């Protein structure tokens, strides 16, 4: 038991990675158990992640050195920097890791019946596992080059998954091409920034770079590159053009994982701003840049969403708009980082709201995409104008949709309300206008989901959907789990904020803790 815990960072990576290469073999012997095999692997990963979370939240951050030995081991020549790949998991990393584990596990369960009729399932599942590996890696690693490698693993597998359904039409391939271009440029610019760091400081470990950061002109260039490309990968306006295409063309279960994948990039953005640069940068300027990106994403995302007819495209624009909330709160936290009074009075709360919103968003947006997938599964269309009266046939899906829509619009007692209220309250103290825009966006979100609900579920039974039934049990199970999480988080937000979110925010703010855990041994 304790050895599982000691090696849990390696196990969380190794299980899905090795299973991904086993998948074609298993699929060759028995196609029927393939889905269950994948679900079991991802369930096991989820279990280990939860164990790890308990460990980290009680005992503080976890260091895992690949190749064994002490983190402080140095070269015989007296060169004193961490020389191996070190996984460094603190409150924020494990927070994102939990999201990834839950979402990828539920995606596998949902795919059991959702993808049953498709061909090439071995490839689908292998790519899903690789995507999960990539996301875990991005969130757990403490080495910046290692981060680049996992970023590429995640983007290559998600491109292949977006383009997975190009047997019949060209649109998925088109969306995949767009995402591929965006993500390869992002990854290459990250690589260039890594080169800039390495050229100056001769180290690749993030904590070590942070401790020797001089904030020279080159560091500023690296910062601009990283902020630009990571917010592009997170899908914020004005670099959002790939988001609606990729989200709407991918299979529904994958869209849910893609949401978590773009949040992993968001996490990397926060990690760069807080852990790598922290107070050494001009936090007010960068904070305001992130706030403006957030406000633009919120507003443009929601206004574009209102006019959409395709249900998944509409939800994808809402995903952009919700990303804005996360950027807004964390941007406020970053802008007041150098000012302890303001930080304590509202900065920490704004960040707690945003970080909590990351988890809430992954849950309710996942649920909404899954209900959209359920509608597509039964009706064969994503066009809202062609749907109608489905509440008569799909009772549970309707209820799950209502829960998801209420949560995204910020209606109590669902989880969206809890985190949005925290953002409104604290951002109001920083700048009332921003808070008012955020509330306005929330109202527009509600309006747009009322429209979806009305056109898809209400109205008389349509002739062509007379024989439509409720979706299979595995899909219902995935949706029900997410709905339960949403309601529980909405009913007891204090427990979650105190035990999960607060440690995550503190891990971001306290840069000295972050560097000291690695450098303590040197």
């Amino acid at each position: 038991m304790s050895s599982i815990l000691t090696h849990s960072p390696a196990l969380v990576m190794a299980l899905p990675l090795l299973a991904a290469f086993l998948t074609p073999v298993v699929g060759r012997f028995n196609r029927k158990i393939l889905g269950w095999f994948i679900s079991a692997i991802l369930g096991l990963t989820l279990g280990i992640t939860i164990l790890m979370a308990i460990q980290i939240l009680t005992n503080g951050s976890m260091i895992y050195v690949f190749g064994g030995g002490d983190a402080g081991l140095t070269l015989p020549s007296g060169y004193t920097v961490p020389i191996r790949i070190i996984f460094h998991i603190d409150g924020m990393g494990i927070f994102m890791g939990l999201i990834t584990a839950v979402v990828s596990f539920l995606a596998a369960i949902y795919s059991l019946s959702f993808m049953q009729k498709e061909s090439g399932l071995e490839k689908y599942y292998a790519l899903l596992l690789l995507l999960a590996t990539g996301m875990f890696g991005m969130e757990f690693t403490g080495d910046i080059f290692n981060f680049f490698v996992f970023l590429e693993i995640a983007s290559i597998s998600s491109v292949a998954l977006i383009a997975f359904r190009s047997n019949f039409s060209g649109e998925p391939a088109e969306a995949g091409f767009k995402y591929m271009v965006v993500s390869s440029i992002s990854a290459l610019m990250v690589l260039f920034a890594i080169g800039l760091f390495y050229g100056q400081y001769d180290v690749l470990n993030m904590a070590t770079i942070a401790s020797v950061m001089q904030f020279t002109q080159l560091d500023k260039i690296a910062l601009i590159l990283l902020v630009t490309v990571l917010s592009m990968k997170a899908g914020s306006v004005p670099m959002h053009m790939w988001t609606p295409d990729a989200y709407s063309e991918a299979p529904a279960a994958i869209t849910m994982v893609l949401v978590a994948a773009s949040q992993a990039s968001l996490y990397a953005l926060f990690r760069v701003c807080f852990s790598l640069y922290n107070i050494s940068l001009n936090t007010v300027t960068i904070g305001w840049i992130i706030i403006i990106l957030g406000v633009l994403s919120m507003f443009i995302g929601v206004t574009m969403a209102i006019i959409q007819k395709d249900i998944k495209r509409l939800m994808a624009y809402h995903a952009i708009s919700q990303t804005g909330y996360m950027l807004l709160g964390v941007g406020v936290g970053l802008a007041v980082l150098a000012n302890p009074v303001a930080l304590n009075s509202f900065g920490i709360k704004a960040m707690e709201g945003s970080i909590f919103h990351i988890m809430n968003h992954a849950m309710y947006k996942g649920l909404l995409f899954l209900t959209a997938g359920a509608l597509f599964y039964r009706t064969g269309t994503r066009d809202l104008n062609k749907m109608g009266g489905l509440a008569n046939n799909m009772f549970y899906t309707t209820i799950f949709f209502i829960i998801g829509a209420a949560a995204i619009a910020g209606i109590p007692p669902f989880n969206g309300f809890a985190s949005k209220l925290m953002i409104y309250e604290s951002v109001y103290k920083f700048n009332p206008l921003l808070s008012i825009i955020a509330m306005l966006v929330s109202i527009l979100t509600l309006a747009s989901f009322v429209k979806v609900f009305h056109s898809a579920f209400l109205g008389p039974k349509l002739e062509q959907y007379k024989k439509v039934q409720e979706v299979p049990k595995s899909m219902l199970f995935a949706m029900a789990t997410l709905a339960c999480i949403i309601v529980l988080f909405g009913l007891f937000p204090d427990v979650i904020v105190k035990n999960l979110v607060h440690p995550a925010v503190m891990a971001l703010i306290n840069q000295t803790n972050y560097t000291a855990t690695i450098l303590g041994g040197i």
Partner: protein
Amino acid sequence: MIGNFPYVAVAILIGLGFYTLIFKKNLIKIAIGITLIECGANLFLITLGYRKGSVAPIYTQAPEGMNMVLPTPQALTLTSIVIGVATTALILSIAMIIYKKYGTINTDEVRRLKE
């Protein structure tokens, strides 16, 4: 001065790559643009690893009394090249699928998603 030439080459490669990405409308040329940026980034990394008067870090082949360079940048570049091959293969295969479905690889005509 002459030592900075590789960095000039890096700037030219990345600049050309971005030029290709922004102004060319052929999907294959876009793939070429990405490859150019990738070459620039790789050249940048490998240039950082160069130290005047040092030899390649092959332990058994290094002459007596000479310093070996730290092999990290070389290792990084190798990894990045391997990833680049995967990226290029994937992007070209997607371009192939697009050509099959649309009958064209001109970006002005490959825009069914916009409608």
